[in-house]
């Protein structure tokens, strides 16, 4: 049995990955498979439930039919899930992956019934040299273009993944001074329950561009405490890795596995899902969140503020602090400017997130489009 797993990222791996810059990865569907790429109402509902943002625009066809969009639309940040390259299996297998930054550009919403296709491309591979501690960290940028099967662009996603050598000081630095997951008192939990009740959604009450003023603040949206690493099944899962398939995979790619408490081989990312395992095999304070949820929470705060008629245009986020599972995330925003480009009326905002320790876990900007009166 192993403990304190350490992995390495080699010069050769980095060089090989750089040769893949520009390579486009996509899922090609046969005609008979295309229906599986269709956005069914259940997919949209699932996403809404898992993020606990169950606004009627995502849930209620009658309500959504009367909205500016004419039908149920998907939560905008769902486009993040269309990345076709999995950093945990396709980049540096065995390394610890953490989303460090993201940029989302939206062209239009995904409507219920749309068939959505995507292609991803590695656009940059750069070693991070300023961590100040031992352990290699490599930033891998992946751009994903999301469109309908009729080539109408939905948007683009750029994710900057930081890939860490497991067991390194660099990975341990992600926890800062924290020695354990946050302990919540019953009073904390009760206070959160009350805070959740304060959330307000503007909904169909249109916010017009002309009514927005610089300095306007968004109502905070609270999320958490998280209780496990969220696992949203992809529409077409990239790996299953059980039984014979796991056995075969472990022979071909042993670096993707660790020897678990049974002395059996298991996908190494399963270390990262729960505190017990992160402590036992990572010598770490616990398990981290993945940061992938965060744009959903920011967009929820934006949507609550701007109502159904508004829609995000650009969102750019950096994640200087990574939450541990069990943390609380509060999302904030403030209007910093507004402009009009042709017929498009845009509001610029500063957005940020904090955890229950008041650590600034996310910084960034957003632009949204609002109607004019």
């Amino acid at each position, binding site marked *: 049995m192993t403990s304190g797993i350490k992995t390495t990222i080699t010069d050769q791996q980095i060089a090989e990955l750089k040769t893949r810059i520009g390579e486009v990865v996509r899922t090609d569907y046969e005609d008979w498979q295309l229906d599986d790429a269709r956005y069914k109402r259940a997919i949209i509902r699932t996403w809404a439930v*898992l993020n606990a943002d169950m606004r009627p625009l995502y849930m209620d066809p009658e309500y959504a039919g009367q909205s500016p969009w004419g039908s149920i639309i998907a939560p905008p940040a769902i486009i993040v899930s269309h990345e076709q390259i999995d950093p945990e299996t396709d980049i540096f297998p065995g390394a610890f992956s953490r989303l460090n930054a993201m940029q989302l550009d939206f062209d239009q919403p995904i409507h219920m019934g749309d068939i959505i296709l995507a292609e991803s491309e590695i656009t940059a591979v750069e070693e991070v040299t300023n961590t100040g501690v031992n352990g290699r960290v490599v930033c891998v940028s992946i751009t994903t273009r999301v469109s309908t099967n009729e080539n109408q662009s939905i948007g683009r996603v750029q994710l900057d993944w930081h890939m860490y050598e497991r067991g390194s000081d660099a990975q341990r630095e992600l926890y800062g001074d924290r020695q354990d997951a946050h302990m*919540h008192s019953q009073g904390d939990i009760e206070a959160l*329950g009350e805070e959740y009740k304060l959330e307000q959604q503007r909904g169909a009450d249109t916010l017009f561009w002309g009514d927005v003023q610089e300095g306007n603040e968004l109502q905070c949206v609270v999320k958490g405490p998280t209780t496990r690493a969220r696992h949203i*099944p992809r529409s077409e899962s990239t790996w*299953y890795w059980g039984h014979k398939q796991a056995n075969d995979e472990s022979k071909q790619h042993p670096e993707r596995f660790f020897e678990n408490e*049974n002395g059996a081989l298991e996908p190494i990312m399963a270390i990262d899902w729960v505190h017990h395992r992160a402590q036992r095999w990572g010598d770490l304070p616990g398990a981290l969140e993945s940061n992938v949820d965060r744009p959903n929470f920011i967009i929820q705060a934006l949507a609550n503020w701007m109502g159904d008629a508004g829609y995000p245009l650009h969102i750019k986020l950096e994640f200087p602090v990574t939450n541990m599972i069990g943390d609380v995330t509060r999302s904030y925003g403030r209007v910093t400017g507004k402009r009009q480009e042709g017929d498009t009326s845009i509001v610029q905002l500063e957005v940020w997130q904090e955890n229950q320790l008041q650590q600034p876990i996310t910084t960034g900007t957003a632009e949204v489009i609002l109607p004019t009166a």
Partner: protein
Amino acid sequence: MSTENDTSNLNTGFGFKGGNPNYGRLTDESVEKLASRIGVERRRDFADWELEDMRCTAGSIRRSALSQGDYNPLYLDPEYAARSNYGSLISPPWNIIGIEVTNAARDGMPGLHAWFRGTTIKWVRPIKLEDYITSVGVLTEVRKQKSKTSGEAVVQEYINTGYNDRGEEIGSMFTSWHRAERKTSKSIAKNQKMRGLAEYSAEDLEKIEEDFKKEVRRGDKPLFWEDVTVGEELPFVVKGPTSQAQRGVGETGGGRMIRGEPGEWSHTHGNAFKLFERHPGLPFVNEWGIPEIPLVIHNSNERCQRYLGLPGAYDAGYQRINWTVHMLTNWAGDAGYLSRLDIRFPSFNIMGDTTWCCGRVTGKRQEEGNNIIEIEIWNDNQLGTRVTEGNAEVLLPSKSNPDEIVWPVQ
């Protein structure tokens, strides 16, 4: 391949927050309240749009098959399946368990532990591409009994019947459940010498690997009733070692629609707080003071040890149904039809265990035009412990009518 585990020093701390003082307790009142539901037909209230979204697609069939490690081309290859008697891809037969309307984990006596004792499944029609399934469930039995492992217990049983979207019956599923207080179960577990987690040497894993290679799938070569001999053994199928990664997929069938109903694991953020406000006795308070639904205890060995006093995270049993179906359909081939499975779970399957699914022909008969093979089935784990036992019936074509479609109702 395993160690013994003395549970006397396990952490304690299973606690609930507020709510009904009888939460998690087995009382005459709670038993009577549950029993008052006997005979009441229950349906899951799917809206029309949900039913449409539930239609079997090539993708949903594929995910289900791969999640169990069954690569039968009837599930994966549309051209191959089109040449079979089915004429198209079919859903793996184990997906009939989706007709279960409710079960003891979410019906009555909240907070009590629920163990799946066994099930009898009858298949009468295949689930084909584009079908969606509805069902009716009825609680049929609630009875108290003493148990060696959990003291006072309750047995709770259901019958579920499933229909396709044309209103045709696809089959039925009888389920039997064991209910007991968690604290009682834990107290008894602490005083028992229990097995530990599975531990594998390199040689053990090599043996498992060799057994994977022994899988035999008959496929499109028909097995005729006349060619089956009583006493013959079916080629086994080996599954595992299970793990968190495997169970994350295997127990969800590769991803299902999440409705966010009480008892499902999808409650997060504000939804969790709303749920716990409606059902204040439902959550347990986890290691970090956070209320969670009890279902998640079963996701990790550490939590099952801590909160239940068990050696590790045990499975609910559903995967063993799937794997046994895999073994039976491998043997029966495309022309055969699994019509009945009676399966019981005498022992836990702990996360990390390996399961060998086996069978032996015990009889054959011809009845009402059906050519029936009777099979004893069992699953053994790496310790040689029988974790599953039961019997099955498979319908086969006869040489006298080799092209016959054998499922009971066409």
